[in-house]
């Protein structure tokens, strides 16, 4: 049915694609540290050789009732519901920055629990709904 030529081409291509998959997998595996955009607090805690005073990004949720604001600076806690890191930042936060929502902070770790940020980004989650629905959901949760 298939000519010999076609068969050999299929075999060659399948082998090549398999090889490429394996190679790409290992490249991604070894570059994982560079591909992830941010580390969660748990990942920071689990890291054996943590690099202090070096630019990194951490991300998670802004812990409820943890925001302390004064005129120029803001302090809050980033949590992944297992571990927490205190973040301090001076400057304006994005509009969507709020308690219980996702956040990414770029800056330097002073120690495993304290982070000084020089940029704050709000992370949006995959939920989309009208305000009324969100209010109704909140009501039924409380």
């Amino acid at each position, binding site marked *: 049915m298939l000519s010999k030529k076609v068969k050999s081409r299929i075999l060659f*291509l399948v082998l090549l*694609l398999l090889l490429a998959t394996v190679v790409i997998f290992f490249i991604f595996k070894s570059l994982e540290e560079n*591909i992830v*955009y941010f*580390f969660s607090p748990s990942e920071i805690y689990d890291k054996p050789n943590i690099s202090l005073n070096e630019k990194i990004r951490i991300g998670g949720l802004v812990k409820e009732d943890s925001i302390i604001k004064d005129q120029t600076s803001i302090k809050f806690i980033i949590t992944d519901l297992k571990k927490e890191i205190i973040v301090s930042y001076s400057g304006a936060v994005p509009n969507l920055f709020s308690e219980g929502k996702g956040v990414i902070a770029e800056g330097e770790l002073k120690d495993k629990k304290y982070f000084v940020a020089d940029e704050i*980004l709000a*992370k*949006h*989650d995959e939920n*989309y709904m009208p305000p009324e629905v969100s209010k109704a959901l909140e009501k039924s949760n409380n």
Partner: protein
Amino acid sequence: MFKNFFPNKILSLNNNLISSLLTAMILVILVGLIYALFISPPDYIQGDSVRIMYVHVPASFIALGCFGFIGIASILNLIFKIKFMSLMAKSLAPVGCIFSLVSIVTGSLWGKPTWGIWWVWDARLTSMVILLLFYLAYIFTWKFVNNFEKANKISSVIGTIGLFNLPVIKYSVDWWNTLHQPSSITLTSAPTIHYTMLIPLIIMLLGMIIYSLIIFLMRYKTEVMKFKLDRKKNNK
């Protein structure tokens, strides 16, 4: 149905089909836009910037879908040497390329008010740029390599390699920590997007798919004509 895409059939494609598709597209896009801009509610956090999604998501979807087709056509072409497959892929490439650009630009416009930044190099955004580069490489190969056989081979190799990027784009938000949010619409679970927002999204997707189909059919017809003319010239 697939037979209709054979080179001889496509030449008899008349303008009636194109113009009825065009009418359908205008109607669907119009309804979609009215729904997206006026009827659907603002989001509970993002407010009105959620409306960018009604263009962003369909554009990304079509950009990925087109390259999926190009990749599979490239593999089939490398194995079986089916010429009309590569002509189809060639005609589809500009549509996908433009939509990947639209996806990147609209995403960036959405990112500023939502994340607080226009652009970051996280896995999703970077892999989307790589898709755009693959599109450009694919298109430029056809444009600048004059010999058909040669262009056909090189572009098919590019299409095949680029196929690997598609699952990376799709799953980048699950495999790595990214700034970009995970998918709201998945095959395995209920969509996390409210139906008042899902409806305009689907209508817009439909409208943009019809648009892509129109552009594709017109280009494909031209490509087949060009191919046949070249062939005739060379035989003389």
